[in-house]
């Protein structure tokens, strides 16, 4: 309170909010705006303060990519309209439209998004900025490869139409794909969608008794299926796991009675995680029990099961706010890719994390196909492993630093959408096309308006 109408620099502003990523670690305060039109985005950029501007989607990146202390953060889901053109099989969407909303609109009309991550609660902007991948990367590549054009507001507030085929701006396009919001704010994008006959998946399941068997079966499965992924029991020393592979089910795979409702799409949220969960709920015991049960739940081998899209692609979306189960200290996801020739790194990583007792529910192994032209895109040909780990594990920092070395020495790298702790040195070493990206970025954002906590942490 001031007698003299003075405003203190310490008083909290109206639209200020503490933001974190999905892992709920390292919060920072930002001025949050919800733009209604492109003009609002332009105005925010033109009037940017010293701490700059950053676009945020649904905050599903795990670390500090979608937050920026002291900055203006544009929460894009306030712009979320989209249209489907069934003739060209394309969707044109506001950057804030979520894959959840888009799927609800296009699946009943017989189309599916070209790439979906393990959650449908991501925006188109976030999907492009992180160049996300799905279970079909080995066949279809990442999200950016399916974008035919996008509209971006650059660091001067100017509108830019970018496309991968326009020689005048394809560099800007590819710097934006995987560019983590640092080249500008994407306001709209057009991307290809794929035709489907049903809203169901035909799923084959196979167990692998140990890591070698699992990896061999995966190589085999990749040749046969559009979608495939393996879950690994992080507690088992053998590295056993379950591979699920699938295709969009065709009409003739359904019993006749079900054909008329084949495109009905009703993903459900079945539960919400409780608001307060004490730390330490997730421990070695609960993790062991979970991993055991999950492994047993899956048949040794089964073919042709019919699953819903939600069950196959987005099982975690059934529980809202499940990220709270890790308690107040939060968690991180460690995801790396290494070339095919460095497959041994997978076993080594599992062993080292097991040794420090870093329990993981979600250990996912997948094979990537070739990289796309985006300099900061994560996927490249090889193996990718992702593990969710609570941050409280003793010795985790050192273990992960050691793994970073191993990954870098093997020619691999970490995924920025998941990263919350790698060093600037590790990042520079493993993204060799950084300089090329930085050159394009400084032409798109000459005054350095766009920045994030991740950008500051990695000096990028």
């Amino acid at each position: 309170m001031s007698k003299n109408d003075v405003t203190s620099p310490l008083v909290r502003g109206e639209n200020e909010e503490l933001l974190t990523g999905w892992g709920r670690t390292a919060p920072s305060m930002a001025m949050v705006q919800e733009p209604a039109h492109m003009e609002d985005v332009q105005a925010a950029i033109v009037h940017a303060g010293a701490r700059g501007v950053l676009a945020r989607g649904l905050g599903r990146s795990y670390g500090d990519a979608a937050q920026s202390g002291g900055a203006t953060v544009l929460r894009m889901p306030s712009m979320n309209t989209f249209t489907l053109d069934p003739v060209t099989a394309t969707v044109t969407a506001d950057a804030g439209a979520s894959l959840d909303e888009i799927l609800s609109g296009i699946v009943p009309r017989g189309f599916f998004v070209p790439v979906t991550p393990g959650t449908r609660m991501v925006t188109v902007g976030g999907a492009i900025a992180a160049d996300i991948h799905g279970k079909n990367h080995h066949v279809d590549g990442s999200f950016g490869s399916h974008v035919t054009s996008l509209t971006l507001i650059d660091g001067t507030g100017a509108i830019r139409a970018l496309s991968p085929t326009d020689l005048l701006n394809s560099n800007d396009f590819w710097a934006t794909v995987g560019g983590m919001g640092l080249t500008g704010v994407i306001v709209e994008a057009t991307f290809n969608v794929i035709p489907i006959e049903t809203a169901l998946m035909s799923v084959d399941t196979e167990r692998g008794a140990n890591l070698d068997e699992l990896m061999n079966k995966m190589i085999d499965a990749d040749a046969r299926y559009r979608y495939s992924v393996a879950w690994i029991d992080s507690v088992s020393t053998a590295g056993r796991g379950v591979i699920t592979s699938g295709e969009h089910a065709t009409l003739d795979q359904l019993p006749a009675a079900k054909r008329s409702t084949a495109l009905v799409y009703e993903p459900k949220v079945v539960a919400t995680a409780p608001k307060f969960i004490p730390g330490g709920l997730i421990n070695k015991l609960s993790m062991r029990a979970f991993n055991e049960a999950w492994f047993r739940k899956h048949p040794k081998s089964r073919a042709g099961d019919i699953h819903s899209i939600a069950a196959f692609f987005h099982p975690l979306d059934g529980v809202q706010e499940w990220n709270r189960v890790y308690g107040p200290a939060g968690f991180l996801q460690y995801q790396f890719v290494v070339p095919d020739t460095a497959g041994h790194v997978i076993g080594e990583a599992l062993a080292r994390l097991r040794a420090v007792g870093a329990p993981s529910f979600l250990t996912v192994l997948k094979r990537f196909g070739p990289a796309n032209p985006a300099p900061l895109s994560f996927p490249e040909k090889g193996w990718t492993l992702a593990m969710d780990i609570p941050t409280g594990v003793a010795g985790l920092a050192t273990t992960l630093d050691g793994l970073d070395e191993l990954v870098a020495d093997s020619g691999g790298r970490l995924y920025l959408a998941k990263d919350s702790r790698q060093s600037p040195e590790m990042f520079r070493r493993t993204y060799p096309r950084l300089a090329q990206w930085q050159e394009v970025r400084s032409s798109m954002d000459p005054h350095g308006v766009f920045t994030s906590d991740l950008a500051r942490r990695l000096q990028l």
Partner: protein
Amino acid sequence: MIDALGDPQSVLVLGGSSEIALATVKALPRNRINRVVLAGRASAALTSAVEELTHSGIKGVVTAEFDATNTASHERIIDEIFDAGDIDIVILAFGMLGDQMEFESDPNLAVQIATTNYTGAVSSGLHVARRLRQQGHGSLVVISSVAGDRARRSNYVYGSTKAGLDAFAQGLGDALQGSGAHVMVVRPGMVRTRMSAGLPEAPMTTDAPDVAKAIIAGLRKGKHTIYAPGNLRYLMGVVKTVPRPIFRKLPS
């Protein structure tokens, strides 16, 4: 930036040759730190502090000219440091102990330590708070003292400066609550340092590295107030309730 595992990249020490602060910087996880600013008056102690930290493998250790009593300069100095990059942890560690008997015989000396320990901290602390608030994250660690918990015949001038500092820092922490910036008040007991050399040892006397450990643990847990050693909290709880006539007679 502080990362998901709580490891900082940048540290500012106000009172750059403070042994507690240096021990804290040394005890921080090293492999992410790329900037340590030791702010203080140019002195042999400050120069050797830079050498000591650099020698122990810490990257980016530099000094900045800073005089706690020259409050007019604080805004410029602190702005310059933050303009060059975000600071994850600020340790406000300057302070003098002085000699109670000298203060009583020459009150000017008492004014000097009051200016340094209290006035200087209010001024620089507010400037730091403004910048932490602007950057939306970061911690300010304020080195207070148990001497501020209850005035003693033997060091009440010093104690009163710490009592003032402590109250200031508590309030500042409340002002910043929920802003992404955070204040942690540290109340060490007697610590074996240059400052306390030659004084008789009080119970629960510690060393700077122990205080450093407590500071780092407190930061990780997001604490607002810590004692070092931790058990002092209970001792001071008792000390504060001792009636004055008895307290006066206790050995200091």
